[in-house]
Each structure stands twice: as C-alpha cells, then as structure tokens.
C-alpha cells in the first residue's frame, strides 16, 4: 500500500490540471451550498434569537377607541399569554416621518442600543437606523408635529425593535428608507400630554397562540378594527422571515442543479484520468494485487482530491455566508448577525466526497473486472454493430465517412453524448435562471411603476370630505385602501383598493382588459393562493366597517405588488360601502394644496426605493452567476476533453492516414456543434421552467414574483453557452496539434 500511496501522490502531481478541475468542482459545490446555508440559517437563527430575546409579539391589532374591556376580552382568549396596548401615530419631523408608539409598560419589547433604559420620564427612544442616518445623538431634541401640534422630546436612548426589523415607515414604499422614515417610543402618558384630546389607545399587541385568532379579534372589535396582522403578514417582521425562506429555497434549488452538474464534471474528469490508467490497472492485477486493493487505490484518488476540494470549500464557506449576510444588512435591522449551519451541510460534504470516490472506483471497475492480458494487449475494443439509421441507405449513404464515424460513435457512447447534452442543457438552465431572476425582479419594478400605475405623485390627506369641500376641482384619482377579510381567502387579510375616477391606475386583467364597474378584481397571486376563480361570488368585510358586501369576481389582475383586490368606487358605493379615500394620485401637471396634504410621495422615489430593494438581492444573483460561469466552463471543457481522450487512437490513425489537422478539427467542431445544438434546444425550455421554479421561491403573501423571459435573457445565455461549448474546440484543437502518432499507434501499453 505504501507504494500505491506513493503512486497516488505522483499521479496527482503529474495530472494536476485534471485533478484541479475535480478539486474545483468539489470546492465550488460545497462552497455554494454551505456558504448560502450559513447565510440563511444564520439569518434564521439571528431572527429567532432576537424574537425570543425581545419577546416579539405574535399578533398586532389596530383599532379605534380601544377600551379596557377590550383588553380584558383579549386576555381571556385561550392561549394568549400577554396583552400590551398603546398609541401609535404618524408624526412629521421636519420633512421626515417618524412613527411614534406611546407605551405604558415598564418593559417594552425593544432592545436598548445606547443611552438610558426605558422609563416613565419625558423623553424619546429613537430607532438606531434613523439615528445613524440623521446623525441623532443622546440628548438631542427631536422635533415632532402631529395634527398641527408641535412638540420636542429629548432623545433618551437609541433602540432597535424586533417588530420593526424591516421598517419602511409607509405603505408607499417596499424597502426601508432610514434617512426619511424612522420610529420611536415614549411613555404613553407623555404622548397623551403632548397631544391632549386628539388620540386614544389605538393598537394592541398579543403574545401567545390561538387557532382562530382572526375571528376572535373581529368579534371583539367589530367595526372598530382597522388592521390585524400576525408574524406572517406584518411586513416589518414577515419580510425578514420570508427572506430566510427565499435564500433557503434559492440555495437548495440552485445547489441541486449546480451539484448535479459538478458531479457530471467530477465523474467525467475522474473517468478520463482512470481511462488513461487501464494498462496500469492491468499491470497491478498481473502483479497479484487484489481487486479490493486496486479499488481502494483508485477510490483514494477521489477521496484525496474530492476530500481536499470539499474541505477547502467548507473552510471558505463563511466568506460566502458573510458576503450574503452583508447584502442583507442594508434591509434588516438586527442587533446581532451570526452564521449558522445544519447537518445538511455535512451531508452535502460527505455526498460530494462519496461521489468522487465512487466515480474513481467505478471508472477503474471495468479494468479491474477483466483479465489483465486483455488490457495489456489493448483488446478492449467496444462491440460495434450497424445502427437503425443504416436501414435507410438513401439517407445514411449521403453522409461522409467522418460523419458516419461521429454518428455511430454517438450511438455506441450514448452516456458520453448524453453527458454532453446534459452539460450544455444544464449550463443553459443555470444561465437562464441566473440572468432571468434579476431581470424578472427588475421587470416587476418597471412594470409596477411604468405600466400598472401612471402618476407623478401620491398624496395622502387626513379627511376626504373636508378636502373635497375645500378643493372641489382637485384633479387626480382617489384611492381608498383598507384591510379586508375575504371569504373565501387563504387565511390572510388582504388590502381592498377602491378606485375613484381617473386614469392613474392602469392595472389590467390577465386577458388585457381594464378594471370596470360591476364586480371585484383579484390579483393573480391572491386568486391562486385562495383558489378563487373568475365568476365566483365573494363576501367581503372591510376593517373599519361592520357590513358584509358581496361581489362577483369579474377578472383576475396581472399585478404583482400588493396582492389583494380592486373595485371601482361606483361598484363599492352601489353595494352601500363607505367611501372615504385618503390617497390621491396626480399626474405631473396637476397642482395640489401642499398645506392640506399629510404626505407627498413621488413615483420616482418609489421606483428608486424598489430598485434599492432589488439591488439588495443582486449581490447574491451575481455570486450565483459567477459560480455558474465557472461550472459551465469546467463541465463543457471536461466533456469535450473526455471525448477526445476516448478517441485519441482514432484521431492518431486518421493523422497517420494523411488527414490534415484542419480536417480533424472540422470533424470535432461538427460533433461539438451537434451536441451543443441538442443541449441548447433542450436547455431553453428547461431553463424557462427552472426560472419559473426559481422565481416562485421568492413569492410572498404580498408580492407575487413571476418569471420574465425576453430575447435578451435567451440570447445572452445562448451566446455564453455556445461560446463556452465551442471554445472547448479551441482547447481540443491544441490537443489535436499535439497528437503523437508514434505513441498512439503502439499497443495500449
């Protein structure tokens, strides 16, 4: 065994380029899977740890005029462990907006980052991200304005809240904008003092679990209920937990294809290496080495290189994990970010090593099985016979001898050809998904802000009736947005948007029709999740209203952001619904009374904010594309190289006969083109399907991600895969140049 080990080390050193490609594949497979796992599991562990530590609530309720009796009823719900109430208002601080929560507990559910512990003193505890973005320090005076009343609070502490991990501050934005939106806590008593007779308790948080919590809450609050959320629907919390699922799904889905292709690359490389050693295997057998020992020796090739690659991948995986986590830090506010791994990583590591060992073992197996003399003689010619196509001499006879050789060779080396096709198709899948994913998300943003909506500014007013009285000529489209309970639904409350007259909302149905009066329209994602079809009748109860309304589903809307329902104000009023819109969409030429508007959001800032959200994921996509590129190059080169090695003697014979290198190159080129073409053809639909699966993993309750494929994606992926595949011909051309006719025409030894 000592000398076999010596042989192993020398063989690895001699063929280091081929072993390096196995090393690289094992390294990349483990690096990608374990790296991504370290990130998503780390985020998951960090979120759960933070949730537990800060006693994150399970339910969030907003209602009008909450009384002590309500709180008692809530406490009486089985499974509820604690109830907290307070006042939540949206204030202005100069041109910025701060969500203020007045709490009456001694132990509020936020974490102190800096400053004084929360106490019933006159002061404010401001959110860390906002404080950093606006350079606010302990002791600063924070000016606030609410309903024309202005106050100032001394900053007592800098805090982070688990219920606001992903804080946008406004429904108008999908990503945080810490320089403009923040949140803060202060004792309820001081808030009431600052704004007397204006506000009362309007929010409650619950901890604990109850199976029918939504119904119980609706029963308790009735018409006063304005909003109900749990951890799956509260954007500030759900987005963070959804991100764990997104990266996890992405990791599994992408790693699956990636590892599959890497296995292909490892298997072909090892097979090629061992194919060069058949005579050595025969010599070892002739010397009396047992099959077990020879198997062990060749298996150790896989163990050494696969093991080294996998372990190096595992060692460097935290670099990938930290990179992925760093891309998430701009979106999520967490006190501690950590890496975490599960046993799956260990299993993947073992799997990759096992594949390398088994590839090496089985590559040597055929030589181990045979008689040493056969392999020393070189009598290992494959059994060849006529193929089905030859029954049509009219067709087959037209092919050149070179083409006949290629065709028959393909038939008798189906696995090699199949691996080539799978390699190209897999490359197409990875590239289409890799490029298509960011394109799909970018398209979603573009479509939302350029096709689905066409406004310049989104205004919010306090009171529709008084605004309308004061400015009866005001142009624009009014929107009334409220949470509603749909029956049937998918277990979650959705937003019901009631559209006034106007042309700013341009959402269309999946069959290209506009929203008209006479029924309700559901977004595609909501309809799918709740299994609602066009023509069905729905019962709707909006929060803030006590009546049930019934509407027939008139169409399914092709809209991705804010999954919910839409209907016209005319239809709503006809059904006796209360119409009090607070949002006005106006175009760029429409004037508006700035002093009577609570907030102004431009579509440009919304789009920039959404792009920011998208860019947050681009680092991960870029990482995956980078990995895919390396993988495709290695896989395609290996497959091309394997074909060359297996037919080296044939090539040499043709050279001896007087066939020019150029003619031989043409032959390998044609063969490569045929394999690439078939793989490419298979790869396009497979890639589109894969992209669909890949994109779907990002879909949440509120946003439906759909694959977007255009000619750019297909062209780019095709160009790359074709270039990679055909460039292997260049590598092969170099090897054709170096064919040693003298050596090749000798016996196998």
């Amino acid at each position: 065994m000592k000398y076999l080990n010596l042989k192993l080390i020398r063989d690895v050193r001699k063929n280091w380029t081929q072993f390096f490609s196995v090393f690289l594949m094992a390294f990349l497979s483990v690096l990608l899977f374990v790296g991504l796992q370290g990130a998503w599991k780390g985020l998951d562990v960090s979120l759960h740890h933070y949730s537990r530590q800060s006693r994150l609530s399970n339910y969030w309720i907003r209602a009008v005029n909450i009384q002590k009796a309500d709180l008692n009823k809530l406490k009486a719900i089985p499974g509820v462990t604690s109830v907290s109430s307070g006042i939540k208002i949206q204030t202005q601080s100069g041109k910025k907006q701060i969500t203020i929560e007045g709490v009456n507990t001694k132990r509020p559910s936020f974490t102190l980052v800096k400053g004084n512990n929360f106490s019933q003193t006159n002061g404010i505890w401001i959110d860390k991200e906002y404080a950093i973005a606006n350079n606010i320090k302990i002791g600063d005076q924070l000016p606030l304005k609410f309903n024309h009343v202005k106050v100032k609070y001394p900053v007592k502490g800098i805090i982070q809240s688990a219920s606001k991990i992903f804080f946008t501050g406004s429904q108008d934005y999908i990503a945080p904008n810490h320089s403009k939106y923040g949140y803060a806590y202060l004792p309820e008593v001081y808030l009431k003092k600052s704004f007397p007779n204006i506000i009362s308790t309007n929010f409650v948080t619950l901890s604990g679990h109850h199976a029918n919590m939504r119904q119980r809450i609706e029963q308790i609050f009735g018409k006063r209920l304005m909003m109900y959320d749990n951890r799956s629907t509260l954007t500030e919390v759900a987005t963070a937990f959804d991100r764990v699922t997104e990266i996890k799904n992405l990791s599994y889905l992408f790693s699956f294809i990636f590892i599959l292709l890497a296995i292909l690359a490892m298997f072909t490389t090892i097979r090629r290496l061992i194919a060069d050693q058949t005579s050595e295997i025969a010599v070892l057998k002739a010397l009396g080495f047992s099959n077990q020992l020879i198997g062990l020796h060749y298996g150790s090739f896989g163990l050494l290189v696969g093991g080294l690659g996998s372990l190096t991948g595992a060692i460097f995986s935290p670099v990938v994990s930290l990179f992925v986590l760093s891309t998430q830090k701009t979106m999520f506010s967490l006190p501690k970010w950590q890496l975490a791994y599960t046993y799956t990583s260990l299993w993947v590591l073992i799997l990759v090593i096992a594949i390398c060992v088994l590839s090496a073992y089985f590559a040597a197996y055929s030589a181990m099985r045979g008689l040493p003399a056969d392999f020393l003689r070189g009598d290992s010619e494959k059994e060849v016979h006529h193929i089905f196509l030859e029954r049509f001499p009219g067709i087959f006879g037209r092919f050149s001898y070179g083409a006949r050789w290629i065709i028959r060779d393909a038939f008798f080396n189906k696995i090699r050809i199949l691996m080539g096709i799978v390699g190209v198709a897999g490359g197409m899948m990875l590239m289409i998904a890799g490029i298509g994913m960011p394109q799909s998300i970018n398209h979603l943003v573009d479509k939302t802000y350029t096709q689905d909506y066409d406004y310049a500014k989104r205004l919010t007013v306090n009171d529709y009736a008084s605004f309308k009285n004061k400015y009866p000529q005001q142009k624009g489209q009014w929107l009334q947005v409220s949470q509603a309970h749909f029956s049937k639904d998918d277990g979650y409350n959705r937003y019901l948007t009631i559209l006034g007259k106007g042309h700013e909302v341009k959402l269309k149905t999946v069959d290209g029709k506009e929203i008209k009066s006479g029924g309700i329209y559901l977004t595609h994602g909501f309809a799918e999740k709740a299994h609602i079809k066009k023509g069905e009748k729905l019962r709707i109860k909006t929060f803030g209203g006590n009546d049930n309304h019934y509407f027939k589903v008139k169409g399914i809307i092709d809209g991705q952001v804010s999954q919910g329902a839409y209907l016209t104000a005319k239809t709503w009023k006809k059904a006796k619904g209360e119409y009090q819109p607070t949002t006005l969409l106006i175009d760029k030429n429409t004037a508006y009374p700035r002093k009577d508007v609570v907030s102004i959001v431009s579509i440009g800032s919304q789009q920039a904010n959404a792009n920011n959200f998208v860019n947050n994921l681009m680092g991960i996509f870029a990482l995956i594309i980078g990995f895919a590129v390396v993988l495709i190059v290695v896989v395609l080169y290996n497959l091309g190289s394997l074909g060359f090695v297996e037919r080296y003697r044939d090539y040499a014979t043709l050279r001896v006969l007087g066939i020019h290198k150029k003619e031989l190159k043409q032959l390998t080129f044609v063969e490569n083109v045929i394999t690439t073409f078939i793989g490419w053809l298979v790869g396009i639909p497979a890639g589109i399907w894969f992209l669909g699966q890949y994109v779907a993993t990002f879909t949440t309750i509120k946003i439906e991600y759909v694959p977007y494929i255009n000619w750019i994606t297909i062209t780019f992926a095709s160009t790359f895969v074709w270039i990679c595949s055909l460039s292997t011909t260049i590598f092969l051309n170099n090897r054709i140049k170096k064919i040693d006719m003298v050596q090749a025409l000798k016996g196998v030894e």
Partner: protein
Amino acid sequence: MIKLEKISKFYQVGDEQVTALQDISFPIEKGKLTIILGPSGSGKSTLLNILGGMDQSTAGKFLFEGENVTQFDDHQLTDYRRKVVGFVSQFYNLVPSLTALENVAIAARLTANDHRAEEYLAKVGLKQRLNNFPSQMSGGEMQRVSIARALSKKPEMLLCDEPTGALDTKTSLRIMKILQEVAKTSKTAVIVVTHNPSFERYGDCIVRLRDGRVESIKRNPVPSEIGEDVK
C-alpha cells in the same frame, strides 16, 4: 529514388541522451520487398516512423524522389503521408465504428480512389466481410483490412511495422504473401519491419539493425515464394 543518408535520431531522456539511430544509410527500391530485421531496441520502428513521415530525424537526409523529407513542415508531412505512404501497424489501428469497407474507403477517399475500396478488400480476400466492424473480425482479417486500407491509397511506399506480430504462423504467412505480391505486381516499395528472422528469405533486400546502426545489408536475388496453400 528513395534514399537514407546518415540518418540519426537521438532522444533526451532525463539527463541522458539515447541514440535510437546512428548514421543509417541505404537505398530503398520500388517494386521490391525490403525487410528490416533486428532485435528489440535496435531502432527498426524509429526508422519506419521516419520513413512514414511520422517522426523526424535529428540528423541526416531522407530523400524521396529528390526531396529531403527531413526538412518537411507539418503540412508537407501530412501531404506526404496522404499521397506517398501506406501504413500497416501491428495493432491494425482501424476505426472501430467504421465497417471494413468504410475503413478502407476513408483512406481511399484521400486519393479520390474510394470507389475502389471494395476492390482492395477483395484483393486481400475479404469480399464477404465488407460490412463487418473491426470488433466482428479476427486479428488476421483486421490486418488484411489494414493492408487494403494502406493499398487503397496507391502508396509509393508501403510501411509495415511488425504486421504479423500479433498473428499466428499461418495467418502471418498469408499476410507476408499479400505483401510479397504487392511488391511484385506494383511499383510500390514495400518495407516490412520485423524481428522474425524466418521472413528473411521472402525479401528482396534484408537490412539488419543492431543498437541503432546498420549491421548488414543483404540482397536476395531470388526470394522464396510463399506456397499457394497459405492463401
């Protein structure tokens, strides 16, 4: 005219220089069977590879019809192999996924002679095996396909490297008879490298090599005929 003038070939193996051939000089006649004899390591195959345009000498001249082949570039050497040389090796070197007919035709095509592929296979007695693949033939049959393939190019020089090395005695004699007939009936220079001294009597010229040098050159005015019974 085919002539070798002071051909030498040296290999560098590690720090050591190995002499494969040293000052080899002799003429080769067309229409004659030249047999190169010698033990293993005497340089027979190296010499044949130089004659076949598959290898280049380190020194000396290899003149073919007045041209110095040793100065040919790769493209010229390929053309030389294509138009001048027919090569038969010990291991047949047939393309496994082409039939006997196609193996011959692919070579014959190089000299626009592919319509006669069948004829060449008939000449070596394989008319009934045209559509068989190499894996479906015996060693002797494969070697005959290899000869037919070499002949189909109408080579001016037929080089055979141990053509009977992997064959039994009777099949070997059959192959030697074919080669003797080729030399006699065409203007092809047939050169057979072998370590089998019993073939000496069948050649017109016998060149003995030892340690990379010419040991002797013997003319055989009346070579022995191989009996009809081996056909």
